[in-house]
């Protein structure tokens, strides 16, 4: 059965309205301050550390993102906390607030499809997050430039730009998750709690649990254990399980992008090291290639979460 008209009529209107809602909201003020504070804190730590170690480093600029100085974590680890929180903060009440304000049936009685409403809301959230992340990125790059005083090379700029894009994709995954729960739960508080709970589980508990589960399924071989090595089968399974979490995927991509000497994500076999010059940096294309499966997996999980939410939303009753 062919539907009449375009599923996207009214999409632009919804995006603009939601975007202006986001940008004028108190939540956005909080996010903006978080962005500024995080940028300052991370840069302060990183620059102190970089100044102390004046070793020659061809990728000094990228160190801005990855260097940490106790007790402050690096900019990248700040981001891996901050991005999910921002996305969940923007997305947890996307659909249920329309139900609770009783605006949903009135809006859907206008000549638009539900597709436009849901997709418009997701896009507006993603654009808002992108604006914040681009601001953050520019702040860090700009301040770093001023404080270090060494201009970054084209390669470094390219790498940090790809890193920015990946971070936006990572934000998209969490936004899609928050959107899904905002469709499933009528109460915004429940949706926020469940999403945050799942975030805690995925980010902090699952990586630990993955090791335990892997050891339970494939017990470590005592011959490897005696040599102080991980059993290859167990290690591989552990990695597969850990990669179910988008946080793990993001961490791996970041390592590949911001540390050009990274040659593989996961166990390396001796055969792979034949002819390799250890410690030599890879070109950007090769680094992206290493991280490509992870990047695709993140895009796929964002799409999957959105589609599940979309299907549920299409079948949901509009009455309160």
């Amino acid at each position, binding site marked *: *059965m062919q*539907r*009449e*008209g375009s599923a996207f*009529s*009214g999409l632009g*209107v*919804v995006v603009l*309205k939601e975007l202006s*809602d986001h940008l004028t909201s108190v939540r956005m003020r909080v996010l903006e301050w978080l962005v500024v504070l995080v940028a300052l804190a991370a840069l302060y730590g990183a620059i102190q550390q970089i100044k102390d170690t004046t070793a020659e480093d061809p990728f000094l600029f990228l160190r801005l993102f990855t260097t940490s100085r106790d007790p402050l974590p690096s900019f990248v680890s700040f981001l891996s906390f901050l991005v999910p929180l921002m996305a969940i903060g923007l997305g947890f009440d996307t659909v249920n607030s329309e139900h609770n*304000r*009783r*605006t949903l*049936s*009135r*809006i*859907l*009685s*206008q*000549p*638009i*499809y539900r597709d436009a409403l849901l997709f418009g809301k997701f896009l507006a959230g993603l654009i808002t997050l992108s604006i914040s992340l681009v601001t953050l990125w520019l702040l860090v790059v700009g301040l770093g430039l001023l404080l270090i005083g060494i201009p970054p090379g084209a390669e470094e700029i390219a790498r940090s730009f790809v890193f920015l894009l990946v971070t936006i994709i990572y934000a998209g995954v969490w936004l899609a998750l928050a959107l899904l729960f905002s469709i499933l739960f009528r109460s915004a508080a429940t949706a926020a709690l469940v999403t945050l709970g799942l975030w805690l589980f995925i980010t902090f508990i699952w990586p630990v649990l993955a090791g335990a589960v892997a050891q339970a399924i494939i017990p470590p071989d005592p011959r490897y254990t005696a040599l102080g090595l991980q059993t290859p089968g167990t290690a591989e399974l552990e990695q597969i399980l850990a990669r179910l979490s988008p946080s793990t995927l993001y961490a791996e991509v970041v390592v590949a992008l911001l540390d050009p000497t990274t040659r593989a994500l996961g166990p390396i076999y001796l055969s792979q090291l034949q002819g390799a010059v250890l410690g030599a940096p890879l070109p950007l294309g090769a680094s992206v290639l290493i991280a490509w499966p992870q990047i695709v997996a993140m895009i796929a999980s964002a799409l999957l979460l959105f589609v599940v939410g979309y299907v549920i939303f299409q079948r949901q*009753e*509009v*009455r*309160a």
Partner: protein
Amino acid sequence: MSQDSVIQANGLTKTYGSATAVDHISFEVGRGEIFGLLGPNGAGKTTTILMLLGLTDISAGEVSVLGFNPAREPLSVKRRVGYMPDTVGFYDGLTAADNLRYTARLIGFRVLEREKRIAEALDRVGLADVAEKRVGTFSRGMRQRLGLAEILMKGAQIAILDEPTSGLDPQATAELLGMIRGFKAEGVSVLLSSHLLERVQSVCDRVALFSSGKIALMGRVADLGREVLGGGYVVDIEADGAGLAERLALIPGVSGVEKTGIGKLRLHADRDVRPEAAAEVVALQGRLKFLGVQEPSLEAIYTRYFEAKKPEQAVQEGARHAA
């Protein structure tokens, strides 16, 4: 009628799993008519409305709104039909005009036409003064009027109003009903639902009384009254004059005379006997202080109908209705 009907429903059914919310209902709404879907909460009125708008799937049956099928051509239906849901909601942080602007953009009006329509609509419902105020500060009655303004702005051919008067004080109700009559005057057909029978009885041309997913009774209020209440007219008269009661009882068609107070009489008749009653008072050289015929009340019709059908169920529904 079928030539000029804007909504035609035939055997419309909605089931949720094994539960049936709307059970094979059929009705038509004529052009420029005010049609009331009345009945207790949970009788299937809102579900029926959502099916007309294509906002919920139809389990069985056919429906045509202005010649379009809401399931297949929802955009064409929604472009021509204005809908005000039960306790209509607006974005509290936006002004009244901005709320309407958002809707107008969704409909696709160009900027000049948009502003003209919004100003006109707000003026019509008496909200022009507060157009730039946030909706968060609005009272319930003002929100309902803003809902009507949205329908006016849309230029809808059919206005579907779900419980438009619920939660309003008597004055706001009267204002709202006046505006609904205004729709009719412009040739807009109105379909309204309510569980408050007596409040909307005065505006409806025809009503359908719902009971657990079925239409129990449908027609003009006066006709239903005659049908259900046993074809009686009740005429109240207040006059003096010796032997008036006896004289009135002799009028052809009068089946009983009842004394309801000092100088007050109530006639039960099978037709409107007001002219004859007045003539009798004058003939006795009495003074006529009051003469009126009671309109049959929907409340009475509804209660009587279900008393006759299922005494216990009617009592339950009456209690739920009162609550």
